[in-house]
Structure formats: structure tokens, C-alpha cells
């Protein structure tokens, strides 16, 4: 019974982790940017989605759309206001740019978090479930919404796979991740490819934000934790490896769920963090990493 419960719960939460982390890792793979404002962007999507759904009368679907849009806008603002100026700056030495982007996005994330707390207060909010009710899966009472979230996540992940591997635009991104200079020499405009990655990233992070709001609820205090969890999943899976992130999301999701059920909910994040430390020692490139 408990085993089944763990199986069902772990599956949904891991799918959501995967969705939240995959954009993060894709962006690092393609453009070398580690965006530490990640949790802040998910937060914007969740809070705007909640606000639109409740205050404007557009309902939960309108709210979801608005939330995803807000995530996209937040991603663009991050790119144009924080990341691109650093990347293009002549005052910053080339080899220091990554650390400047890291610091810049970290600070920007804190600014988003504080700003959102002032506007919306630090009370966590929850979106109404996209579909209500519960179903019985072999005796495990599971909210329909939880099942739908898992399905949606996998649908989006599947579409992303098709986009990257089966379309011209996706192949350009892959090429950019392997050899950006070569791509430039062939006459491709790198900044257009980067913008495309930020667009995909914004939609993914925004979607993950609103789905999290309708699954567990999101508050401004969670922003740091959301960034940290995406970051650990991505390090565990291998920086820049999309399939590595998917596997890592499930490893972390199930490890956490197992701990919460079998040991104590209080210790939930600990074993995954220990595993992370171990991976950094033994296999620093992560499960499927190449960098």
C-alpha cells in the first residue's frame, strides 16, 4: 500500500521536477548560462497565474495561460536586462563572464523574490486544480489534478524532444551547444538562437511554475529552494544534458518521496543532497554529462 503510494506520488512530483529543470539545463547546454534567477521566474509565473485566475475572472485556464506568459516575459527581461548586457560588455574579461552572469542572475532572482513578496505578501498561494476530484489507483486516493500534471509534463517534454531532434531550429540549437564558433562561421546568427533558447526556457519555467502552484502551492519563500532543486538535478544529471536531467529528476523525486514516507517528512531533501555531494566527488560530470 505504502509502496504503491510512493510510486504514484513520486511519479508526479518527479515529472514536475523534470519540467522545471529541463529548461535550465537546455539553456546551460546551448548558451552556457546558469540562470540562478530560475526560482524567481517560476515564482512570477505562479503568482501572476494565481492573481489572474482569481482576480480578473478569467478562471483557471486563463490564469494558466497568463502565468506561462508572465514566465516568458520574466525570462526575456532576465535575458535583455541582466544576461545580455554582461555577455556583451567590453569591461568584463571574457573568462570572467560566466561568474558575472552567475552573480547577476543570483541578485536578480533575489530582487524578483523580494519584489513579489512586497506586492503579493509572502503567503503561499495555490491555483485551483485544472480538474477537480480524486480517483482510486489500486487503493491509492490520487487527485485527478496530480495525474493530469504528470501527463502534461510528459507531453511537454515529448514535444521538446521532437523540437530539438526533429526540427531545423532544434538542430541549430544542438549545433550551438556543440560548437558555437563553427555555427557562426557557417553564417548563423547566434543571438537569434540564444533568444530562441530563452523563449523555450521561459515557457518551460512558466509552465512548471503554474503547475507547481496548482499541485503543491508556491510562496515567495520557495524561490531559493526552487533554484537549488533545479540546480542539483542538473548537476546530478550532468550539466547541459537534457536526458541526464530527466533521469536525475526521477532519482531526486523518488529519493525524496521515499525519505518522506519511510523515514520522516522533515528529512525529505537530505538524502538527495548527500547523493549530490557524492556525485560531485566520484563523477563530477554527472550521470550523463559531457562538460
Amino acid at each position, binding site marked *: 500500500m*505504502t509502496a504503491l*503510494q510512493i510510486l504514484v*506520488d513520486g511519479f508526479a*512530483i518527479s515529472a514536475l521536477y523534470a519540467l522545471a529543470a529541463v529548461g535550465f539545463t537546455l539553456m546551460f547546454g546551448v548558451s552556457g548560462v546558469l540562470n540562478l534567477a530560475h526560482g524567481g521566474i517560476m515564482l512570477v509565473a505562479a503568482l501572476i497565474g494565481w492573481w489572474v485566475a*482569481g482576480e480578473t475572472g478569467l478562471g483557471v485556464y486563463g490564469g494558466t495561460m497568463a502565468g506561462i506568459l508572465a514566465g516568458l516575459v520574466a525570462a526575456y527581461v532576465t535575458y535583455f536586462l541582466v544576461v545580455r548586457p554582461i555577455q556583451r560588455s567590453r569591461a568584463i574579461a571574457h573568462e570572467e563572464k560566466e561568474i558575472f552572469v552567475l552573480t547577476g542572475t543570483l541578485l536578480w532572482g533575489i530582487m524578483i523574490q*523580494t519584489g513579489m*513578496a*512586497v506586492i503579493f*505578501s*509572502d*503567503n*503561499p*498561494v*495555490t*491555483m*485551483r*486544480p485544472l480538474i477537480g476530484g*480524486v480517483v482510486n489507483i489500486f487503493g491509492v*486516493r490520487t*487527485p485527478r*489534478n496530480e495525474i493530469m500534471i504528470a501527463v502534461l509534463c510528459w507531453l511537454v517534454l515529448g514535444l521538446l524532444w521532437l523540437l530539438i531532434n526533429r526540427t531545423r531550429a532544434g538542430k541549430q540549437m544542438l549545433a550551438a551547444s556543440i560548437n558555437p564558433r563553427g555555427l557562426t562561421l557557417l553564417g548563423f546568427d547566434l543571438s537569434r538562437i540564444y533568444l530562441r533558447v530563452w523563449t523555450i526556457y521561459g515557457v518551460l519555467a512558466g509552465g512548471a511554475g503554474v503547475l507547481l502552484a496548482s499541485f*503543491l*502551492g508556491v*510562496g*515567495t519563500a*520557495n524561490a531559493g*529552494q526552487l533554484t537549488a532543486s533545479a540546480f542539483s538535478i542538473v548537476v546530478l544529471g550532468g550539466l547541459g544534458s537534457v536526458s541526464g536531467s530527466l533521469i536525475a529528476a526521477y532519482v531526486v523525486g523518488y529519493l525524496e*518521496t521515499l525519505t*518522506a*514516507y519511510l523515514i520522516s*517528512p*522533515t528529512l*525529505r531533501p537530505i538524502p538527495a543532497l548527500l547523493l549530490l555531494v557524492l556525485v560531485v566527488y566520484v563523477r563530477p560530470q554527472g550521470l550523463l554529462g559531457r562538460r
Partner: protein
Amino acid sequence: MAYSKHVSARLTRRLLSGGAALAVLLSLTVGVPAPAAEPIKIGVIGEESAVAGASITKAAQMAADDINAHGGINGRNVEVVIYDDHSSAADAVRAFQRAVSEDKVSAVVASYISEVALAIEPWSARLKMPFITPGAASTDISKAVHDDYAKNKYTFHGWLTSAFIAQSICDFEHDMLVSTFHVKSTVVMSEDAAWTKPLDDRFLECLPKAGVKVLDHIRFNPDTTDFTPIFNKIEGEHPDIITTGISHVGVQPTVQWHDQRVPMAMAGQSSQATTSAFWKDTNGAAEGVITASAAAPGVALTPNTIAFTEAYQKRFGVSPAYDGYTTYDEIHVIADAIKAAGSTDPDKIVDAMEKTHYVGTVGTIEFYGKSDLYTHAIKYGPGLVTGVVLQWQSGKQVTVWPHDKANGKITFPATIKMPK
């Protein structure tokens, strides 16, 4: 409309200042000393981004305005100096030190978080600065005053201690749930924080006495976001209800409890559920949730309650959180003490505050004395302060306990199975 209101307000202000000038002139001519222009400052440490923290500063400002409209303290105006501690004990201590050394306040009202209040307490002793917390609950705050009165007497505990909050919930469960709904067992579920330790101790002691057997006692990390495993464990133990002790969390466990159709009612202290924003934050998942609170909309605990609630609602657009009520009362308590002491000398203020008998918005406020167990905490009991227990029903907070204040009956949504 707004324009004319604005103009008339300006006109009134001008007339008033004109009148004040006339009064000063008159008093000069008859030789009465003019009221000292120097205001009496009271430091207020809240937190703008938290519902409970913002309520402290808002209510304090309202109280000061009301006191000033009624002539101030012996002719001197009250000025509140506001600080934000971002829920951090270190920030709160810095704000407290600044209030004392730079802003020269005469007393400080601070925080709804026990950890923060406990961090300020020794500074209140060192700097000999009267300090009252309108919302923290840990019994350790007043215990420190009891244990070393000479040193810690400057601290007052302006909200019910955790032990009394637990007692009021036990009394409620005994009066309402045991008799009407045949509740016989519960699981205590509370967040791991300073205020819940004494709360849980009292729960474990008073629930069995109230006729409710405690099957299990679960404490969880306030950072928890997924409550499924906790509800799962509780459900496996088959209690009749869940008794809560939550304040740092609230929205998330409530929504997950609702979405997962956990069949047991939740009753206890759920601080976020005391605010009017809770319904929207949870999208109505709060239906059926029962929580203790300082006061509730439309319930006249004293003749002052409703007037305050309505004025607050009108001015800020939201209803006060529990510590909004107590802050409003305690600014008055401090003002009265300064008035009675005729001075801002800290020892004299403390002496005067100990003699407080003030009919506020949450009840009649008195403080326990030097020999009582909870020295300087507000007294709990009928005729003093008991708080109320309210239940969320169709978007409204309905008061269900105590009997003489109740304006509705307890009902549960269909998904909740109460014992037959």
C-alpha cells in the same frame, strides 16, 4: 467625489491648525503652559511582506492616530516609528537598538514570531526599554520574566501564551466536538518552531482531559511543501480529527488536505487561516477549516471590537490579522501607562503597565503579576481574553466558540467523515 473629499479634508486640516494656533495663543495669554511640541515615540517592528507582520504596523498607526485625535498623551502626540525585520531575529535586534539609541523611543511593540521576540527580550533588559510583543506565543517569553524579574521586567507578552492557546482549543474541542460530533481521538500535527513546543506539551496534557485521545504527535519542518506523506500517515492511524498547530505554513497543507480529500476535519491553531486573505490564497480549499483567533468579523468581544474592525477594513481594504487587534490595544495600553506614570521613565512605565485594566478590542487586558507563572503575559479566561474559535464556511469566517460569542454552527463539507 474623491476630489471634493480631498479638498474638504484639507480645509478641515487648515481649520484645525487654525484652531490649534488660536488655542496656543489663548493658553499663552492666560498663562497656562503650552503643550510640549515634542511627540512621544513608540517603536513598531513589523514586516510588510507578511500578512501578520503588516497588520502590526498598520494597526499601530491607527492607534496612534486615534490617540492623537483624542488629545494625545497629556497633550503630547504619539508618533510611531516603523521598522521592518524581514522575519529575521538579527534584523529585529538591530531595529530595536536603533529605536532606542537613535530614534529615542519610549517603548517598542514588536513581532509576531516567537524566535524574534525571544531574541529581543535580552536587549529590552539590557537597554531597559519597555517592550511588548503583540503576536508571539512561546511561554518562554513570560517564563524569563518570571525567572529573573529584576532583569527582564521590561518585557510584556501581549498575546496568549502557547499554553493558553492550546487550552482554548482543548476547551473548544471539549465543548463543541466531543459532545455534538462524538469526537474521541485525534492526531496532533504541528510545525517545528519555538511557539509549538509549549503548545504541544499542553495539547498532550489537556486533550485527554477534554475527552479526546491523542493517537500520535507529528512535528514537521516548516519548510515542508508536500504534505501528502504526513496526511497519509495520519489517515492510517484513523483519528476522528486532526489537531493543528501551524503558523509559518497554512495555505499549502490546507490546499493539499482539500485536494486529496483527506476525510478528517482540521481544527486547532492555523494562524494564516485567521486572515481574510486565506480564502483567496487557498481558492476556497479552506472550507470547513477551524482555527483559534484573537477576534472575528462581526463579533463584538467588547464594545470596541466591531468599530475597530470596520475602521481598519475601510482604511486598508483588508481585515486585521490577530496581532492587528492586539497591537491596536497595546499601543493604547502603553499610552495609558505613560499617562498614568506622568513620565517616560522605563521603570515607571513598567509599574503602570502592570496595573493595566484596559477594555480593548480582544477583551479586557490585564497582565499576570510577579508571582504568577506567566509574568507579564496577558491573562486568559472568561471576562478577560479567551480568543474565539472560527470556522471557514462558504468564504466567511463564522465564530463557533465560545457559546456567548458564536454567530453560527459548525458544519463540515461532505468529504469530511465525522464519527457517528
